[in-house]
């Protein structure tokens, strides 16, 4: 099964406690919704292979606990991640307000700067919405993230969110190749002495 997998991507889900990180993941991986999902302790881990534009990618998704105390531990999991899903609850403004803290943490602990970030506003099925879609959009634009609103309960936007993220990661050069053949910087604009044909420099005289 692994033979045709293009790459394995590490993705991290973060956000305040109770915004539905684990539910989103469960919806994505198992396509189920469990209203009585226990609060995550530490980090949890799930795997799913998806196909985007004909490219198969294996996703190793790390789901983290949102509680303050667990947070001292989670930053270490940022290491080597190619994508981060930052979740807030559209029915609770405080989870949206705290996004800045999460971004700070991301910035501090991420080992690379080209990592792809996605903002997900969860629980849009609920009626008592407190955060407008436009606010989410604005925030995402300001911090150059992908943005989508979703509901783990009704399944809205969940699949789409993960697919978008993976597509973006695959499109980002150098982010996922294990062996990225970066061509070095050329120091001189023209190599001296290009062999027999052209003669660099002042060859005809001296």
């Amino acid at each position: 099964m692994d033979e045709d997998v293009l790459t394995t991507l590490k993705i991290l889900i973060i956000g305040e406690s109770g915004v539905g990180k684990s539910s989103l993941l469960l919806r994505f991986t198992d396509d189920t919704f469990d209203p009585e999902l226990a609060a995550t302790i530490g980090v949890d881990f799930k795997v799913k292979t998806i196909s985007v534009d004909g490219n198969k990618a294996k996703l190793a998704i790390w789901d983290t606990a949102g509680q303050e105390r667990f947070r001292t531990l989670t930053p270490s999991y940022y290491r080597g991640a190619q994508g981060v899903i930052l979740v807030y609850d559209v029915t609770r403004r405080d989870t949206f307000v705290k996004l800045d803290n999460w971004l700070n943490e991301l910035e501090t602990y991420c080992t690379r700067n080209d990592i792809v970030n996605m903002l997900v506003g969860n629980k849009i099925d609920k009626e008592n919405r407190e955060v407008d879609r436009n606010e989410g959009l604005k925030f995402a634009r300001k911090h150059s993230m992908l943005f989508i609103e979703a509901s783990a309960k009704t399944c809205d936007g969940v699949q789409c969110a993960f697919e978008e993220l993976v597509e973006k990661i695959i499109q980002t050069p150098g982010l996922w190749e294990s062996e990225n053949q970066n061509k070095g910087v050329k120091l001189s604009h023209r190599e001296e002495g290009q062999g027999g044909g052209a003669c660099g420099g002042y060859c005809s005289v001296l």
Partner: protein
Amino acid sequence: MAADNEPESEVFEITDFTTASEWERFISKVEEVLNDWKLIGNSLGKPLEKGIFTSGTWEEKSDEISFADFKFSVTHHYLVQESTDKEGKELLEDVIPQSMQDLLCMNNDFPPRAHCLVRWYGLREFVVIAPAAHSDAVLSESKCNLLLSSVSIALGNTGCQVPLFVQIHHKWRRMYVGECQGPGVRTDFEMVHLRKVPNQYTHLSGLLDIFKSKIGCPLTPLPPVSIAIRFTYVLQDWQQYFWPQQPPDIDALVGGEVGGLEFGKLPFGACEDPISELHLATTWPHLTEGIIVDNDVYSDLDPIQAPHWSVRVRKAENPQCLLGDFVTEFFKICRRKESTDEILGRSAFEEEGKETADITHALSKLTEPASVPIHKLSVSNMVHTAKKKIRKHRGVEESPLNNDVLNTILLFLFPDAVSEKSLDGTASTDNNNPPSESEDYNLYNQFKSAPSDSLTYKLALCLCMINFYHGGLKGVAHLWQEFVLEMRFRWENNFLIPGLASGPPDLRCCLLHQKLQMLNCCIERKKARDEGKKTSASDVTNIYPGDAGKAGDQLVPDNLKETDKEKGEVGKSWDSWSDSEEEFFECLSDTEELKGNGQESGKKGGPKEMASLRPEGRLYQHGKLTLLHNGEPLYIPVTQEPAPMTEDLLEEQSEVLAKLGTSAEGAHLRARMQSACLLSDMESFKAANPGCSLEDFVRWYSPRDYIEEEVIDEKGNVVLKGELSARMKIPSNMWVEAWETAKPIPARRQRRLFDDTREAEKVLHYLAIQKPADLARHLLPCVIHAAVLKVKEEESLENISSVKKIIKQIISHSSKVLHFPNPEDKKLEEIIHQITNVEALIARARSLKAKFGTEKCEQEEEKEDLERFVSCLLEQPEVLVTGAGRGHAGRIIHKLFVNAQRAAAMTPPEEELKRMGSPEERRQNSVSDFPPPAGREFILRTTVPRPAPYSKALPQRMYSVLTKEDFRLAAPQVCPGRQLLPGAGIEANLQEKPTHSRHVEAAGRSPARIQLGCNGNNATKNP
């Protein structure tokens, strides 16, 4: 054949190519290539702008064709021009081809950097057919003619108007003959190449004679010939007093004296002059025949008087650069296979090895409560002990590093060792490095190295220095061994390691740095514990289960169960996930409280007695929250810090977690494994808040899981009613389960979540087994980081914009390479190479500045001009000297030449002055200001009708270059000729075909007359 099903009436016309000769096939291949590249027809581009040959981009396209089994490469060279519309590329009637028009264009004479054909003929576009293999050559005249005939036929058949050349003779001779065909006109590009200049042609008048006889113009008088001349002078002998700038520190460093040593600094600069030659080109761009006299007895061409001066510099190839060598040598260590032991002779780490191999033994020794004597640390003391150990192992052998050097380095690395203050004091101030926010400081983030003020970084620099100046690999191994000894010493004696940021390992740094930080964390905890032990020893001795401590570090569940049973009702499943070490986590701040409560709570415990317990381990009150049951204020407890992790541990841990799989059981198990921290926090919370409930805990720990609602009670009052969230109420979820298991134990008496003893031993063992090669790999990012900083620093003194750009590129390139766990050697080498190049560039800038004396220049304006001139020299292939010989820069160059001439003639300056007479006399008797020109170039041009006076006037041009060992005339012969009809018989073509060139091998004989022109033998049909 293909017509089996065609009606009978169809008329077949079979064209038979089966008997085509190799030659015909070759021609058709040439035509095919020309067609493929769309070089057919004529499209006139814009007139060439001044200098476009240098500033524009040249591109080339290549293809390979063969004549029988002889391979040729066909290459199309062209100047990239702003796309003239493809649509506009229609055949223009009766316009002479672009290349012929360009013969007269004077805007690009003497391009500084160009293909020789461009230089000789002023072409903007041409095709060359040359033997593909470098060693191959077309030597015989008949073969040359055959090739040229092919070209001629191909051009005629396709109507291509781009000049087509064939390279003949050995490649180094750069002999090209070619042809260009246009409507009613044809150019034969011919060339004479001799090793020795015939005497009569060493000057302008002789060359004019050739030119005139060649064009054979029937008109009298001849139309005026326009002349462009360039003489090039070479300056090789820079006077000593113009290059005294040896890198100032080199001697001191090479001497190997400790006094001159400054560890932590990198050397910089070139050891030899990175500028080897200066070429001065004096140009007379536009002269007319008769204005100037240049013959074998007299010449008006005085370089001082030339209207244009331009200068180029020749750079020394790969000058030896100190910084580059330094880093390269360090990189070489990465490839060494030897272990430290092998390098240092007999096993120096023998004892170390034993200790680390048997961690249990080390553990019991270290964890014994006996207080460790803290004596003052001094370097000499350290070195002494170290030396003693080494001597013991190595016997009489000399150690690679002498004591003085070793002392200096250790002092540099561990400045706290000599400080008068107590050790911990110094260490902690060292740790509080003001976190500089500057871009430079944060570079370690990009390189994954270590901060520039850290121990790791300094160690890298020291090892680099030792490798280069003090004992090479052996020295490196020796210092590393000392370093590891020092680390152990510090661990055993509770001395913090200086030069490391406090807190958990910084994952943005290199692994070695993380390991040292980890060790520091361990020392910190151990120290806190030991000190706590000392202060409270009298009170709490009975709480420390000494037996458990001695039980050691083994992860044997049975062993654990036993202890658990002894201790009471602790759920074994919980404990098995936390660290097994039977030692307590402890903080200094707790020690006072400990005195009061320790004994009591040690024996009691269990949920039932909770309320009656005295609160313990409180950190501070949590806002206004009160406990739900008894209304007491809610306190945040002192908690255990989570275990610090280095990236390899983390990797290991996440691997273990990931291995549990994605099943429900796996997830459950995973949560269990990570719940030690939760349990510990719950226990601390219970201890701090007697009588608390899970709701209280959740309100502190996960406030969103406590849902409060405004409810109107029976009396109609609005009351806040709270309850746990649904997920917390799930029966037997892990939170509830943990809560039930948790006993009220303050953090300091809980089992340690982080076993510092074990972790420290692991780190020390890890350090001890690193080979010099491993070490070099660990530290290479630091060395690259330091080298980049050094280059940056040096550049800022010179302010070279191109270097700034390259440094930026190096940083971004390195950050990509170094973030991978095992960067390829090739990529690392490339980075080092880039750094060396930048160093050479800066050294060149310095050399030039010194030579042109920019610093000595007094007038501000002139100085600025001169600086600009120098920086142009670095970046451009050729720089125009403003004001030629009379400008400021020109005068300096003049002086450089004069000085070199004097030195060459061994004439002391005074004598020279005495002999100064009239300019004429001086010219003959004394040394002239300039050496004879190393190269002389002449371009002669005119437009004449030929062969008859009524013929169309066509451009004529002759380029000639004379150097010491090379004489070349390149003369396109433009003559009216009928355009060959496509498909015209080969036979016919051949008969009209004249010989195209005659190459005279002049070695030994001097031809009386050089004949250029079209009157020669007819081409032979069968070579």
